[in-house]
């Protein structure tokens, strides 16, 4: 209780401070770099390579926004944040945009005074068990020992799920995903539970992935998305519509390969509006007409980004599932560009 009061107080202080400055978009342009908060490392979502270049699904959002605003997808300063530092980093203005596997929840949006600009990945909490355990549903896990990361929403979801199904479990608290892998493989727990995307990434690293299975139950809603500070709506609009541009581009079949051709004008007016050959959407955002084109050119449209970083062709191998376009039965849906 007290924690949230303090957290709230510092957030308000941060906002009061933030309100006094110019708009974020002006700051970013003046700086020539986007300060983008990412994770300190989550497979597929954000990780530095051997030469220190960041790549991943969340990183691609940062680069797209940087390309839209600054015209250069590499003009990003990636600021690694932990679960403990991410919100203060955003509230204090150290970062302009937080694209860090963050679940959109009521209290984060309302109480912590942030604006989620959309959802770039629909995740949910799942369970992984060794096949030899012989269970096929999470409801059969009565009395199981469960490896669980402490201090996250997954802990609360787990308690809710087991209570609702009237079965018992024994938690094995762990701090990081790496520790969880070790504990789970050593047999310290029967079940490992965390977001399904992380389970898939973890399972892919096992020596014998087929000896482990992810149970079909998904027990929580974890819509992950980028977020910005409350109160700077121009900046929020830019981030929101950059994400929507990536999604719309996939829906309309605009890819990094054919975008040069399509930017010369097509028969589809929505593509033309998106790419700036018709209408003045860029001007309304305070950017130039090519903003969306640049954002899409950096790493491709939403589908390309997904495939490149976490899709079936990667070692992580996550199927689109909920994250397919709405036209393919998924939840990824962008409001129209008009």
């Amino acid at each position, binding site marked *: 209780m007290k924690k949230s009061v303090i957290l709230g107080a*510092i957030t308000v202080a941060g906002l009061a401070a933030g309100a*006094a*400055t110019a708009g974020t978009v002006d700051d970013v342009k003046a700086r020539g770099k986007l300060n983008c908060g990412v994770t300190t*490392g989550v*497979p597929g979502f954000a990780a530095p390579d051997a*030469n*220190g270049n960041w790549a991943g699904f969340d990183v691609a959002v940062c680069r797209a926004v940087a390309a839209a605003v600054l015209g250069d997808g590499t003009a990003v300063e990636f600021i690694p944040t932990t679960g403990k530092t991410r919100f*203060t980093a955003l509230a204090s203005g150290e970062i302009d945009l937080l694209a860090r596997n963050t679940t959109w929840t009521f209290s984060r949006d309302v109480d912590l005074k942030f604006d989620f600009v959309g959802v770039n990945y629909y995740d949910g909490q799942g369970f992984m068990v060794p096949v030899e355990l012989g269970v096929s549903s999470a409801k059969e896990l009565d009395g199981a020992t469960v490896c669980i990361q402490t201090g996250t929403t997954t802990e609360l979801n787990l308690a809710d799920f087991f209570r609702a199904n009237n079965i018992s479990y024994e938690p094995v608290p762990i701090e990081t995903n790496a520790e969880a892998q070790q504990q789970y493989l050593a047999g310290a727990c029967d079940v490992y539970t965390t977001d399904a995307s992380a389970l898939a990434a973890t399972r892919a690293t096992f020596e014998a992935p087929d000896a482990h299975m992810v149970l079909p139950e998904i027990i929580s809603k974890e819509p992950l998305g980028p977020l910005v500070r409350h109160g700077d709506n121009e900046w929020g609009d830019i981030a929101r519509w950059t994400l929507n541009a990536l999604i719309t581009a996939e829906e309309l079949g605009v890819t990094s390969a054919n975008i040069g051709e399509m930017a010369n004008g097509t028969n589809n007016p929505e593509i033309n509006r998106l790419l700036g050959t018709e209408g003045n959407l860029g001007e309304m955002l305070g950017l130039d007409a090519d903003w969306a084109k640049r954002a899409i050119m950096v790493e491709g449209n939403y589908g390309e980004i997904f495939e490149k970083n976490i899709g079936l062709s990667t070692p992580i191998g996550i199927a689109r599932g909920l994250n397919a376009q709405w036209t393919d039965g998924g939840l990824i849906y962008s409001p129209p560009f008009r």
Partner: protein
Amino acid sequence: MSNIEFVRTEMLPEKEPPASTVGPIGWMRENLFNGIWNSIITVLFVLAIVWTVLSLLGWGIQPTWNAKSLSECREIIAATGYTGHSGACWGVINDRWLQLLYGFYPLDANLLSAVSGASAAEILADPRAHVATPIVMILGYWRLNLAIILLFVGLAPVLIERAPRKLLIVTVLFPFIDVWLMWGGSIWGPAMAFVGFVLGYFAFKILAPIAGTLIAVIMSAVVPIIWWLFLSGSAASIFAGSPIDLTLEPVSSRQFGGFFLSISIGVVAILGSLPLGIVLALGRQSDLFIVKALCVGFIEFIRGVPLITLLFVANNLLNIFMPPGTNFDVILRVMIMVTLFAAAYMAEVVRGGLAALPKGQYEAADALGLDYWKAQRLIIMPQALKISIPGIVSTFIGVFKDTTLVSIISLMDPIGLSNAIRANQEWNGIVWELYAFIALLFFVVCFSMSRYSMFLERKLQTGHK
């Protein structure tokens, strides 16, 4: 008549002691196998040690140095027919050791491209494909390497008695040159910071005979602060435009990382905490009430708070309380916090040394007519510090190892990097190899410090025992 008396007329030659009491065998009988229980325990421990070493070697000696991913490691290990639990995947160290050492610090691509002939862009994309790895390390990161070398040269006159005294010039200058090398930019910024110290020195020199020591001390602090706050910035920018300027590509603190980050935080904390700790320890024993209260309050507050809390304050809270737009460097904040933390512990260690001195030493100093500072400098401190060497070095080592806590506030020290490295799917799942490498780095530094302190103790031994 027979004479039964016998008096030996010459000494018998000395015999070798029995083989069972000398040499390795004698030592083993004496120390390892004296009695049935000791023998049993010895055998058990030897077996345990042999088993541990053999399994570690079995795990560690694997031909996986050139593997490009964990799965490739597994294929290589499977091909060797190794049947143990699992084998080490050293490919991750081969791939990432430069990163673990230097973090995200930018390579000097122009220099490397001049050496190799490849273009700067190619170098940046994959330096080790075009230039031999040792050259990447030495020339690519020459700024950091030079900073470290200067650090050692600068410390030499302090650490080694025989070092030429002229090196003291380096000792005075290297902090400023190192800041310039590490962060880049114009050399006039650090130079003007140095001028502040010079001004403080002259303020003291000039005022001390005229206005008394106390005023001189106060002014020697006030003058540099005024200079730094109001004048040095504009002076630096005036000189920066002039033709006599050396400029290095500026590097932001966010690009610092790896073991170099640990070293820079550790060195600053170590070099800063000793003088600060001495001042605090003296202040705590002072007769001046306010000085004493301030010192006691500071020491007890810092010692009562965990380092991790101070780091959170440095990282999160300070940002919010400072006026918007101020960009107070995060690494600088951490360095200050760690230094203050170490200083509080150092103060107590030094106070222990002061307390161990017999009262007669203080009285002797008074009897010689020395004033407070001279007594401290010539009589009290040399003895008190000598007594405290083990405690001081323990604090140094502790602080250096505590720098790994910065991974919690998302700075990329080796521990933080190990997590980031695992976030690449090719290395996801590797734990022990990275920790082994990091442990080795820290062991080398901490063990050297420990050995140096033992050497120093022996050298300063003046035979009270």
